């Protein structure tokens, strides 16, 4: 057979050509490129939208957790002169520093930024806020020598530690918020953990993780039988029962939280029933809300559908003949379940557990409403720092740590299940 002739065969020069005469390879590449551009153009609007409305805010939060322009912006000359001063020398900064500080501070006082600086420095050392509030006004009409004048206002200005704190806090970027978020602080001798009694955040992180594990485990315990039942029933019946799972899933979070608040109160329905059937007496009503119990019960209820749905979708695919084969070969019911059925459901357990755990660890509303003080999560502390204590840097640092934790878990989830397999309802 002659390869080089005949209609539709390879032409004499060995190059396949499209109808318009361009080489086929080139033509295909062009079409492919056009398709790529078209798909990117379709994606671009949303990508830009998400970058501006969502990614930029997250980046801003990450930046705020290390940002520290306030010291240098408020007292620029002092910070500049303090560069040459060594706290280890055991001597106070010289008169020039005090003079610069007098100028900076009186300007800051007039611009009403001095108390904010004091608040910022207070995170490094307690008492700085009061010191700045006290010294702002006197600084505006001070006479040289300034060193003596400042010490006359408050003798803390004669303390080397005060100036060391200002010098330590002056770089534009700081790890101070992260240190506070991990219950550490920077002293003259380097980074040190806070005394045991003052540690707060590590304890809160541990509690958040512990409670999330308890919630994940109770969801698994309650979700597994339900998913098993749904998977073993005929489709028509299981679809009906699935509604009982989907209805809570679709009901507003606040509705479910208010329901638990009503049910768990000391004068609420559950306590009333327990008193009525005589399990407890009227004086011994159980305290089930505004503590850990409340958080665990309410959040287990809220997150249970997220455990049942992935479990159900995995169990649906397990062929009943596996278990039948095991039994026909003499396995008992338990052995057939434990050795054959259960190992097949492990992917579902992994998917559901990670999903519930990730959702639980960042929860805010439910712990806030039913958690009291002993059942709150780290997210409640973040909210507190944003809206009440206004320590945004610390809130950002805590948020960053939580974000890293969640992203690591999602990475694991992606490895196990694949993000693309996320299904809704």
């Amino acid at each position, binding site marked *: 057979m002659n390869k080089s002739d005949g209609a539709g065969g390879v032409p004499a020069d060995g190059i396949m050509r499209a109808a318009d005469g361009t080489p086929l390879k080139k033509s295909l590449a062009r079409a492919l490129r056009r398709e790529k551009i078209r798909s990117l153009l379709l994606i671009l609007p949303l990508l830009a939208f998400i970058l501006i409305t969502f990614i930029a805010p997250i980046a801003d939060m990450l930046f705020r957790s290390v940002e520290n322009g306030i010291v240098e912006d408020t007292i620029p000359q002092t910070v500049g002169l303090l560069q040459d001063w060594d706290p280890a020398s055991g001597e106070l900064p010289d008169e020039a520093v005090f003079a610069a500080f007098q100028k900076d501070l009186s300007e800051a006082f007039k611009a009403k930024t001095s108390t904010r600086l004091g608040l910022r420095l207070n995170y490094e050392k307690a008492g700085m806020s009061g010191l700045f509030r006290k010294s702002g006004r006197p600084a505006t009409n001070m006479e040289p020598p300034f060193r003596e004048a400042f010490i006359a206002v408050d003798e803390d200005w004669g303390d080397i530690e005060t100036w060391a704190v200002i010098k330590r806090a002056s770089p534009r970027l700081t790890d101070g918020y992260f240190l506070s978020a991990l219950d550490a602080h920077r002293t003259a001798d380097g980074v040190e953990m806070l005394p045991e009694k003052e540690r707060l955040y590590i304890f809160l992180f541990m509690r958040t993780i512990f409670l999330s594990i308890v919630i994940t485990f109770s969801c698994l315990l309650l979700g597994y039988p339900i998913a098993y039942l749904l998977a073993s029933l005929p489709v028509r019946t299981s679809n009906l029962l699935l509604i009982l799972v989907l209805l809570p899933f679709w009901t507003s979070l606040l509705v479910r939280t208010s329901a638990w608040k009503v049910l768990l109160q000391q004068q609420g329905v559950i306590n009333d029933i327990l008193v009525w059937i005589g399990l407890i007496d009227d004086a011994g009503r159980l305290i089930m809300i505004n503590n850990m119990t409340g958080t665990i019960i309410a959040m287990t209820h809220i997150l249970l559908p997220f455990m049942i749905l992935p479990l159900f979708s995995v169990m649906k695919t397990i062929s009943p003949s596996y278990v039948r084969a095991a039994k026909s070969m003499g396995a008992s019911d338990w052995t057939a379940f434990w050795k054959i059925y259960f190992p097949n459901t492990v992917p579902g357990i992994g998917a559901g557990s990670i999903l519930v755990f990730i959702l639980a660890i960042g929860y805010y509303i439910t712990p806030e409403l039913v958690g009291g003080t002993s059942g709150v999560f780290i997210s409640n502390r973040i909210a507190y720092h944003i809206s009440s204590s206004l320590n945004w840097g610390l809130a950002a640092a805590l948020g960053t740590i*939580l974000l890293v934790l969640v992203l690591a878990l999602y990475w694991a989830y992606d490895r196990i299940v694949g993000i693309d397999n996320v299904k809704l309802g």
Partner: protein
Amino acid sequence: MSDLPPYASTGQRIWHYTFRYVICGLIFFFLIFPILIIIPLSFNAEDFFTFTKAMLNLQPEGYSLKHYNDFLTNPDWQQALRNSFLIAPAATFLATAFGTLAAIGLSQSHVPFRRAIMAVLISPMIVPLIISAAGMYFFYSRIGLQGTYWGVVLAHAALGTPFVIITVTATLVGFDRSLTRAAANLGANPVTTFFKVQMPLIVPGVVSGALFAFITSFDEVVVVLFLGSAAQKTLPWQMFTGLREQISPTILAVATIMVAISIVLLTVLEMLRRRSERLRGLAPT
């Protein structure tokens, strides 16, 4: 598994029925009871959160619509309701429009950096709400959007887009490409092809995505709590303050109304899902 074989022993029978009717029954009860219990409680004639004697004896005096009346007349609740219906549709529109386009783009066969793009677009669903709220609060106050209507709308739209992408992508998975090629072959331009051929087939996915986006915004409280000012107080926000501060039974009336809304939404979604499967030629379940 589904039914007991005729040769099952007594022990197997006992376990089978205990498991099915006692254990699973109790768990279903746990799932559904808290939602159902608030419905009768919302008709309480007293300002209590538990059943009164009159209610238990089924006396008509024990029941009343006064909490619903309070919801409909109290200016705080009315303002919140209005705000919710101003914010959610706008956010839904933005999320659905952007999300549908992007999902169509993502479903093409050759998309460069698909995984990275997908990760960015899905991220609002992954990041815990408190972190999104914190970041948005910081960033939106820099650009003057904090405490404004549009700030809340943009934030809610961002939170809703992942759901639109997921649902629309799901309908596009079974999409037969030869349909668009046939349309092009018959002389339709890409725009006509999109609206006449592709759109009718993916509409169920788009609508359920829009419903998800709507419910995301309508239920959302953490972000609006930080981003909104008093003028943007939504229904969930009002419920949140109500639960935290002066807990009043009106909340139960609102909760009952919201349960009714979710039942309607659930029904619509299920109908859409079936329609989509029928349209795409998959076996109806």
